[in-house]
């Protein structure tokens, strides 16, 4: 069973951040290719997002997200409190324009720009 305090914290973060990425590493230094792909999509969309590095508490966070969203692998992108998906889904929705719609932004003309500076990482503890 997930740690109730950690679960509460994660639920608060999901509620407080309209766009929240649970990832391995940070936007500046992703520690996993899948996490990096989602960061690149978010940067291309030019949206503000919160990012949390799950590596310091990987197993406890897996247990939390299993309960919160029935999903245990990272990255996880939450938009308006709902889990949208991991790298595969995010890229697919990016390419189809569904992600821009979910985020309420314009679909960018160029698909992989890296102009905006990455959002600062959030601290989980």
């Amino acid at each position: 069973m997930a740690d109730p305090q950690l679960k509460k914290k994660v639920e608060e973060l999901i509620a407080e951040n309209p766009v929240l990425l649970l990832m391995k590493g940070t936007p500046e230094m992703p520690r996993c290719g899948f996490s990096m792909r989602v960061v690149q999509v978010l940067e291309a969309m030019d949206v503000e997002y919160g990012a949390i590095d799950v590596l310091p508490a990987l197993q406890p966070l897996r247990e939390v997200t299993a309960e919160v969203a029935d999903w245990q692998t990272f990255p996880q992108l939450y938009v308006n409190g709902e889990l949208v998906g991991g790298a595969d889904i995010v890229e697919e929705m990016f390419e189809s324009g569904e992600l821009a719609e979910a985020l309420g932004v314009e679909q960018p003309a160029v698909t992989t720009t890296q102009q905006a500076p990455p959002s600062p990482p959030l601290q989980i503890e």
Partner: protein
Amino acid sequence: MIEAALPGAEVEVVDETGAGDHLRATVSAPQFGGLSRIDQHRLVKAAVKERFDDGQIHALSIKTEVSG
């Protein structure tokens, strides 16, 4: 395994590394109709959960489509 869990599904699995533990699956199933992508992926993951649990698969990339 996926076909057993989702009758009528068309499944194509590619072994990305040649070692059989990093797979890419394209699944087209009538059951996906009306579901969000995340729910479609949940169905596929649930179908192969045993293989993850016993360590035969380490990574699975999923692409889903609605068929039928």
